[in-house]
């Protein structure tokens, strides 16, 4: 149900001494919002460098070689491609929990049990302009695996319950929108839920079935007595999840995986599986998949193929209207534009 407007309570309670002290504290400290945006910009750059370190297998000389050859723009682009998912996941979690905590903190203050200081996530969510919220949700919708897209429903309700459009809705309008959304959602994912049930994929079933129900209940403040424990537990938890989810991104390759066919001087053929770091007039340098760098003379290279990595193999056999649940909407759209190329058999071989 539409919740009371937080800004209105703030105005009504402007004479509240607790809130006055909170405002003065906010004025003395750098704003949480500013810190957040500093982190949001600086983190990807730092991350890109950390990824190079992992990519090099921890070898200093290889890190230097990579730093010399990998174009920073390409590095940031690959970072964006592989990291958007995690970054938007954290932003959505922060904005959703921040909005709930903000509304709940206001509610607690009205009931005479104000928090000693406004929760960090609430300040971050309030500092974020509307366009950044919309951008975050659009990016999340485009880049999250379809399996996790339903989670955006409760997050969307949590975040946008602070907007005037949501607050101005009458109960009838709210019920109408909820009914229409649920009916469309049911039509869209019912066959997938049925398939998940038949395949005993209960986690996937939960992912499709529970978020819309959660979305119906998530609006409004949490009980005053739960606000403080929630702020204490949930905020660090999100940051821990962020670190946990970041680890795979750190180890995701920056360069495309290839198999290069080399004909040696004695006529033998060799297949080198790895990442092409750089090339000049004479040599090609390849970072091998199992570690180490190989320099090859151009004339010895007879073929090179682009290979998928085993991490790209899907886990589920579930689709939503023929879109695989482990694809993002962007990936699924791409597959419709260009169908999968035939995997070269050389990519499948166990290579030295």
């Amino acid at each position: 149900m539409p919740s009371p407007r937080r800004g209105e309570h703030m105005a009504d309670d402007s004479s509240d001494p607790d809130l006055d002290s909170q405002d003065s504290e906010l004025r003395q400290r750098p704003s949480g919002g500013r810190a957040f945006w500093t982190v949001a910009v600086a983190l990807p750059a730092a991350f890109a460098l950390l990824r190079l370190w992992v990519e090099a297998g921890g070898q200093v000389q290889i890190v230097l070689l990579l730093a010399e050859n990998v174009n920073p723009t390409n590095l940031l682009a690959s970072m964006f491609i592989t990291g958007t998912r995690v970054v938007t996941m954290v932003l959505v979690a922060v904005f959703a929990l921040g909005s709930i905590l903000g509304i709940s903190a206001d509610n607690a203050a009205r009931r005479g049990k104000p928090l000693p200081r406004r929760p960090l996530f609430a300040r971050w969510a309030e500092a974020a302009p509307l366009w950044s919220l919309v951008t975050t949700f659009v990016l999340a919708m485009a880049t999250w695996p379809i399996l996790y897209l339903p989670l955006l429903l409760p997050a969307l309700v949590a975040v946008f319950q602070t907007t005037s459009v949501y607050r101005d809705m009458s109960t009838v309008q709210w019920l109408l929108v909820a009914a229409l959304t649920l009916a469309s959602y049911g039509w869209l994912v019912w066959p997938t839920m049925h398939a998940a049930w038949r395949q005993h994929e209960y986690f996937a079933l939960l992912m499709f079935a529970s978020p819309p129900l959660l979305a119906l209940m998530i609006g409004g403040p949490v009980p005053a007595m739960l606000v403080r424990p929630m702020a204490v537990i949930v905020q660090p938890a999100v940051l821990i999840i962020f670190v946990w989810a970041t680890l795979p991104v750190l180890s995701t390759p920056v360069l495309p995986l290839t198999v290069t066919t080399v004909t040696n001087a004695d006529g033998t053929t060799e297949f080198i599986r790895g990442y092409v770091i750089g090339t000049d007039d004479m040599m090609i340098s390849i970072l091998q998949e199992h570690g180490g760098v190989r320099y090859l003379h151009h004339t010895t290279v007879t073929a090179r193929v682009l290979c998928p990595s085993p991490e790209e193999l899907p886990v589920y056999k579930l689709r939503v209207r023929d879109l695989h649940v482990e694809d993002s909407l962007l990936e699924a759209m791409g597959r419709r534009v260009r169908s999968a190329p035939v995997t070269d058999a050389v990519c499948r071989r166990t290579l030295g």
Partner: protein
Amino acid sequence: MIGAAACQDRNKRPGRPSVEEKLVEAGLADHSKHPKLRIGVYTRRPLLGFMENGVNRGFEVEIARYIAKNLGYDSDQKIEWVEIGTPNDRQIFLQQGKVDLVFASFSHTDNRCGKDWAGGDVLCAGPYLITEQSVIIPMTMKGKISSIQHLKDLGGKVCVAAGTTSERLLTEDRQMAVSSLNGTELCIDGIRAGTYLAASSDRTILAGFAAKYQGELLVLDLKLGTADRPGIEQLAVGVPRSNPALRELVDYFLNKSFKDQQAGKATAWTSAFDQYLSRWYGEQLTQPSPQRVPDLLDYDAKSPTR
């Protein structure tokens, strides 16, 4: 929930084997241990498997090359072509471990391949071609022999290879008098010598002889099969019993080609059929659906299905 999703994402493993895992299981992933794929083929069977300038050619050879390429053996340097001299060699070579695969008109029977292709004396993948029994006549008899009744009227002038489906069809189902010889090649020699006026066998074999003796022989578009005995031959890929993973891989890649054909894409199968069989076979065939397609995980698992 996001936390649960993150944990699930990192820990869940696919519930079905991947093509790579099957290659390892079949012993074909490491080429230092299995440098060449040994494939049994005919070398003297026109259109299906024959030698031309020292190179193996033919419809079955091309299908074998397609499978070998997908298994990682992408050139003739990585394939050891093993000559199948007589039909009996096919099963013996598989059982003795002399070949990894056989592409030599190995038709499905319950004894050979097991009921429902579940495995018999050997394992069978496919079918890669479904063919039927037909009749070949000298070109001089064109228009004079064109029906079952005409064949009946010929009496003993119709020749078949002893022990074949054609012999059973003509003698038991069609109640015809035929001359049974020790191989279709002898019947063809007999027709060319004027001893016989017609011969019956598997249509692909007859098409091969029509191609070999261009202008001399004609394959009739005549269905010999009956409701009780349709005379259909399902040509299968022979695989040793000891290597079920290889059988699954062959079926998987045959099915891939079948699905590509269904989607209207050009495939190695259609190209091989057009190159070797279509001119002589008498009708345009399509690749049949394999019987036991395994559920393997591959890199195109997320591709659109329609």
